[in-house]
C-alpha cells in the first residue's frame, strides 16, 4: 500500500481524487502549447463566430428564411449576397437559420452518446462477467452495421424529422464510447490506486466516479471532440437524403440537396456546403489541439518534432 502511494507510482497514475486533467492547469499558468497553435485558434474562432451567428440568428437574418419573397434562382447580388433558391428564398438567411440546427445538434448528439456510452462502458468494464458480456454483445451488434445505413433504417421506420434523425444517430453512435471506456476501465480496474481505494472502504460507485472516471476522462474527451465534425456530417447527410430536416425548415444538408437538383445554379448548394465545411474543419482543428494537449505521449512526440 505504501508502495502504491509512492512518488514513482504517481507519475504514471496520479493519486486518487485528482487526474491528469486536474493537474494540467496547476502545472502551467498559460494555455498548453498545443492550444496556442494557429490551427486551434482559427478553429476556436470559427466556432465562436458560428455560435454568435446561431444565437443572434433572428436579428442577423436579412429576410425571413422561409419567406418566398424574391425572384427565384437569382445569382448572388447586393440584395441577396448568397443568391436565392428555387422558391425565391434568401439563401443567406437560410444559411444563418441553419446554424441554429447544425451547431447545437451535434453538441447534443455527442453529449448524449458520450453519457450513454461512458456509463455503459464503466459498468461493463468494472463489473465484468455477465454484465460485461451482455453490454458488449449489444455494442457489437450495433457496431456490426454500417452506421449511416442503420441510422437511415431507423429514420425510415420512424419518419423524417430532426428529432428522429438525432435519436437515430445517438443509437448508432454510443457504442464507440462504450468500447473505449470499457477498455480503459479494464486497464484501470486493477491499478493499485483503485485497489487501494477499495481496501480503504470505498464502494463501487465511489471507486468508479472518484478513482477510475477522472483517470480515463481525457482519451474519451478527445474522442468526443473529434466526433463533433462527424456528427455534423451525419446529420447533414441524413437531411441530404431527405431523412432529417422536414421542409421547409432551413438545414444545410437539405439545402445542399436542393442545389443538386439545380446544378446550373451553383450558389444554391455552394454556400450551405461551405457552411458545413467551415464548421466541420473548425471542430476537427479544435479536436486535434485538444488531443495534443491531453495526450502526454503525443505531446512528447510533438516536442521532439519541434526540437528537430
Amino acid at each position: 500500500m505504501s508502495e502504491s502511494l509512492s512518488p514513482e507510482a504517481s507519475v504514471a497514475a496520479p493519486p486518487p481524487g485528482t487526474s491528469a486533467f486536474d493537474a494540467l492547469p496547476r502545472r502551467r499558468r498559460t494555455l498548453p502549447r498545443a492550444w496556442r497553435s494557429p490551427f486551434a485558434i482559427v478553429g476556436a474562432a470559427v466556432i465562436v463566430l458560428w455560435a454568435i451567428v446561431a444565437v443572434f440568428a433572428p436579428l442577423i437574418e436579412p429576410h425571413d428564411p422561409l419567406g418566398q419573397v424574391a425572384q427565384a434562382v437569382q445569382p448572388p447580388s447586393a440584395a441577396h449576397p448568397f443568391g436565392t433558391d428555387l422558391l425565391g428564398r434568401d439563401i443567406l438567411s437560410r444559411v444563418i437559420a441553419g446554424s441554429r440546427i447544425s451547431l447545437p445538434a451535434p453538441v447534443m448528439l455527442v453529449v448524449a452518446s458520450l453519457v450513454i456510452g461512458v456509463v455503459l462502458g464503466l459498468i461493463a468494464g468494472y463489473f465484468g462477467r455477465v454484465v460485461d458480456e451482455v453490454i458488449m454483445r449489444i455494442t457489437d451488434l450495433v457496431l456490426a452495421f454500417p452506421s449511416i445505413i442503420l441510422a437511415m433504417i431507423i429514420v425510415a421506420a420512424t419518419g423524417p424529422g430532426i428529432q428522429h434523425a438525432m435519436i437515430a444517430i445517438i443509437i448508432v453512435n454510443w457504442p464507440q464510447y462504450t468500447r473505449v471506456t470499457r477498455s480503459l476501465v479494464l486497464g484501470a480496474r486493477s491499478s493499485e490506486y483503485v485497489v487501494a481505494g477499495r481496501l480503504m472502504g470505498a464502494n463501487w460507485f465511489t471507486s468508479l466516479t472518484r478513482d477510475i472516471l477522472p483517470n480515463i476522462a481525457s482519451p474519451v474527451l478527445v474522442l468526443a471532440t473529434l466526433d463533433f465534425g462527424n456528427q455534423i456530417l451525419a446529420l447533414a447527410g441524413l437531411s441530404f437524403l431527405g431523412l432529417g430536416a422536414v421542409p421547409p425548415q432551413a438545414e444545410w444538408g437539405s439545402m445542399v440537396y436542393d442545389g443538386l437538383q439545380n446544378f446550373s445554379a451553383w450558389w444554391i448548394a455552394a454556400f450551405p456546403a461551405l457552411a458545413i465545411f467551415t464548421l466541420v474543419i473548425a471542430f476537427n482543428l479544435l479536436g486535434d489541439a485538444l488531443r495534443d494537449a491531453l495526450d502526454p505521449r503525443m505531446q512528447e512526440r510533438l516536442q521532439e518534432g519541434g526540437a528537430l
Partner: protein
Amino acid sequence: MSVKKRGIAAVVLGSIAVLTLAACGSGGSGSASSAKSLVVDTNYDLVTLDPGRDFEFTGNLIDAQIYETALTYKGDDLSKPVPELTTYQVSSDDKTVTLKLNGKHYFSDGKPVTVDDIVYSYQRMQGIAGNPSFLLLDPAGKPITITKVDDSTLTLTSSTANPALPFILPNPSLGIVEKATVTAHGGTTDEKDGAQSWLDTHSIGSGPYMISSSDIKSRVVLTANPHYAGTKPSYTKVVVKNATSATQKVDLQSGQAQLADGISPQDATSLKSSGKAGVTSGASLYTLYAWFNQMPDLGGPVANEDFLNAVRHGIDYDAILKLVGAGSVQPGGVVPQGLFGALKSDPSNTYDLSEAKADLAKSGYSGQTVKFLVDSEAQAGNASFSNIAQTLQAQLKKVGINLQLVPQPSATALDTFRSGKFQAGMAQWGADYPDASDYIAFAPDQNVGLRAGWATGKGISSAEQLKPLFTKAMTTTDDTAREKAWQEVQTEMNKVGPFIPIVQPGAQLVYATSVKGAVYNPLWTVSFADLK
C-alpha cells in the same frame, strides 16, 4: 350491329390529314432527295425494341418510327385517333371495333401489310404476356378477341363496352410486324416466343424508318424504309444516341446532336435565348394533384367540402406553373389537357384569396395541423415535389391553412397513400392510355378514390353524388355524350371531390436551328418523319 358515324368521321378526318401531309410533303420535297442525317440524344431507358414487349420511353420513341399502328395520332393531338394502317368503326354497344385496311402499306422488305399481319401482331403481343399486354385487355380484364373477317377486315371484340379501344390502338407497343419474317425468327403467339433478340437488332415494320444497326445500351441507327407508303422522310439516316442531360446540352451546343429530349428546362431556356437552339414543349400525360381524406375519422377537418374549396381557391396555380417550368399547364380536372374527355379549365379551380378565406370560415377549420404526404424523390419539370409542396404550404398559410409536410421516399410514400389511412397529400397519375376512361380509378370505391377515403355507404355525400356520374361516363357509348359525361364528372368533382388537380408538368424538345417541324408527342416524343 349498327355502325356509328364516328368511323365515317374518322375516315374524312384521316383523308384531310393525308391531304395536308401530301401538301406539306410536296413543298419540302426538294430537300428529301439529298441525304440528310439527324442525331437524336435521349436518356436511354431502352430494354427492348420488340414492339410486343416495349413499354419504355426510348422504346416507344424508336418503335413509333419503325412500326406503323392500325390507328395513330397526328402531331400532339391525343384527343382523336386517326387512321394509319386501317380505318375504324365502333359498334353501337362499344364492344366491337372493326378495322379495315387503309390503302396499301409495305414492310421494309417490300411485302404488303395484310390483315394476317395485324392479327398476328396483336395476338403475339397478348400471348407473350409482356409489359404492354394489358393494353389489349377489356375493362373486365379479359383478353380482347381478335378475328380476321376477310382479306381487308378484322374485328376486335371485348366482353364489355370498351369505348377507349380506338384511343389505345395508336400505342407504339401495338406496332404491326410482318408475320412471316417474325415467325421465321422464332416468333410465336404464346410465351415461348423467341423473336425478341432478333427484333432488338432488326426490324420488319411498315413505318418510315428501319433499323440499320442497334445496340440497345448506347445507340440505334435508323435508315429510311425504301418501301414506306407515305411521304419520304427528309432525314434518311437517324442516329438515336444515349446521352445524359448534361451531355445532351454539350452535344447540342457543339452540333454533335440536332435533337435532345432530356435537357433541363433551365438549360433549354438559356440555349434558346443564346439563339443556338429552338425549344418546343408540350404537356405530359401526368396530373399532379392534392388529395384530402374524406373519412371523417382520418381526414378530420379536411373531410369537409368548404375546406376543400378553400384549398382550391387558395392555390396560386400560375405561381406553380412558373415553378414547374415551360410546357406545364393547369389541368381543368384530373384528366390531363389534350386527352379525350379533358376539361379545358374550371372556375372552381382558380386563385381567389378572399373566396378561399370565406370558404375556410364556413368550414369550421380552426388552424389544426394538416399532415400532408409528399414523395421526397419525385420531380416534376424544374421542381421537385418537395419544392411544390413547400410552395403550396406557403400559399395556403396565407389562407390560414396550416400544412405540415411529411416527406417520404417514393416507395414508402406510395404505400402510405395506398393504405388510404393518411390525412392528405400530393400525388401524380400518368395516363396508361390517352382516354378519360383510364380515370375511373378516381371514382368513389375505386383504386385511387379509396386512397382518399372516398367510399360510398359511409355517409360521405360527395361520394354518393359522384358515383352515378362516373357510372354514366363509363357506360355512355356515343363519343360526344361520353366526352360530355366525363367533363360533367370532373366539373362536379371540382366542386365537392377530394382531389384538387394542380399542375400537368411539361416536357420539352430542344432542337438545333437547322431542324424544322419538331412537335412534342407525349406518347412517342417526336416523329422523325415530320422533321424537315
